[in-house]
């Protein structure tokens, strides 16, 4: 009796498993998006077939014993699909996954849209790969990122995607102007424009001369350390130290230079600065 009982239990369990397996539809585990396939059926008579996917639901009458054709447009969206075959109150079901087809488009996020030259890791590029039906392509692919400015060598680097995403940090170039930031893969290209502007002023130089109303101070063309003219509006600070005291004037750069007329009749020592950069110092004598 002790030996018979476990054997009977095992037999019942096996039969139950076999009966359950018979209720499962034979489906492929994975299908490529937009690729049709056939589902084999057994028996006779008519049945109702349901296909339920992420962006598709259909119901149709089918003949048992004949193959059910799942058409390519029915499986365009990646994700899990349920297939249900219902006949006379009984149903058989199964599920399968649709995975993305080959890459067809890139979603490219570039940041920022404007950046000073010479910024290490300042340009951020993120690319997401999608197939023809906007499914995320999860297979690893190599995306090439290129950053180029006119008359300057381009910087390029290849990055492998993980779960459809590739990202990079690139240095901004040394030349001011519009840079093309491109993400590319197998002939698919997405480009963004990054405006590279001059960085902080460098090597400030001033000259000063006596004028009828005081002292006229003018900078040489203000440039960054790569030689790019700084943007109009960059503030240059002139400081005059005279017997009358210390006076400071902030002047915006206009057409590459900053100038101001200081109403100081006596002798003065004038210095210049912009941000953390100091320029030269000039001594001017008093009015005759």
């Amino acid at each position, binding site marked *: 009796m002790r030996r018979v009982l476990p054997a009977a239990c095992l037999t019942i369990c096996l039969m139950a498993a076999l009966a359950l397996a018979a209720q499962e539809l034979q489906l492929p585990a994975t299908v490529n998006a937009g690729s049709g396939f056939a589902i084999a059926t057994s028996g006779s008579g008519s049945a109702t077939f349901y296909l*339920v996917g992420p*962006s598709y639901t259909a*119901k149709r009458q089918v003949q048992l014993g004949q193959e059910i054709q799942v058409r390519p447009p029915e499986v365009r969206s990646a994700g899990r699909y*349920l297939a249900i075959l219902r006949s006379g109150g009984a149903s058989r079901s199964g599920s399968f*996954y649709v995975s993305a087809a080959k890459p067809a488009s890139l979603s490219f*996020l570039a940041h*920022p849209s404007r950046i000073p030259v010479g910024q290490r890791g300042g340009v951020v590029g993120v690319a*997401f790969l999608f197939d023809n039906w906007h499914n995320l392509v*999860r297979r690893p692919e190599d995306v090439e990122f290129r950053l180029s400015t006119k008359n300057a060598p381009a910087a390029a680097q290849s990055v492998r995607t993980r779960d459809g995403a590739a*990202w990079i940090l690139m240095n901004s170039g040394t030349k001011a102007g519009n840079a093309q930031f491109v993400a590319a893969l197998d002939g698919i290209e997405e480009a963004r424009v990054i405006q590279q502007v001059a960085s902080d002023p460098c090597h400030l130089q001033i000259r000063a001369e006596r004028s009828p109303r005081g002292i006229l101070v003018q900078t040489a063309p203000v440039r960054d350390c790569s030689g790019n003219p700084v943007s109009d509006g960059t503030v240059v600070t002139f400081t005059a130290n005279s017997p009358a005291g210390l006076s400071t004037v902030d002047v915006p750069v206009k057409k590459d230079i900053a100038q101001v007329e200081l109403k100081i009749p006596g002798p003065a020592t004038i210095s210049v600065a912009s941000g953390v950069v100091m320029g030269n110092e000039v001594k001017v004598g008093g009015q005759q």
Partner: protein
Amino acid sequence: MRHALVLALLFVFSASCLAADGPRVQFDISHIGPRQMEEVTGRNIPRDWGRAWQTLAVAFAQNRPDLLGHYFTGFAQQKLTAGIAAQEKSGVRTRYVDHGHKLEAFFYSPDGGALELHDTADLEIQVLDGNNLVHSERVTLRYIGLMTPAADHWEVRVLESVPSF
């Protein structure tokens, strides 16, 4: 008058469905990169993910694609909208009973503009033909999600179930 009353009742019903607490979402940021997540964002992501799922369930249960715009955008919104249109056309509806999510953030872009997630969802899925239940299952499904920030919350831009992570 009668139509207006029905519409008003429908609105109140759907609004109350969305106002209720969303599904339970456990959020893990221990494998996130390259950017670390700010504390506030770390609180908002599971909240908005849960609300997105809640919206999805109500939208599919009631054939209401107009609800999706609150928490879905881009390709996710397009696909779910198409899904609701297809189920409305076929007369077959999918009902989701949400038993919770284990959400893991693994890619947060350096500029903070995109967040990619792995979600292990415990769902009960019911397929109804008219009012007849033709299929019911409780499953653990894996989803890849891509979220992007909107004005005051995060939106789901990509939502795809996958066989494995």
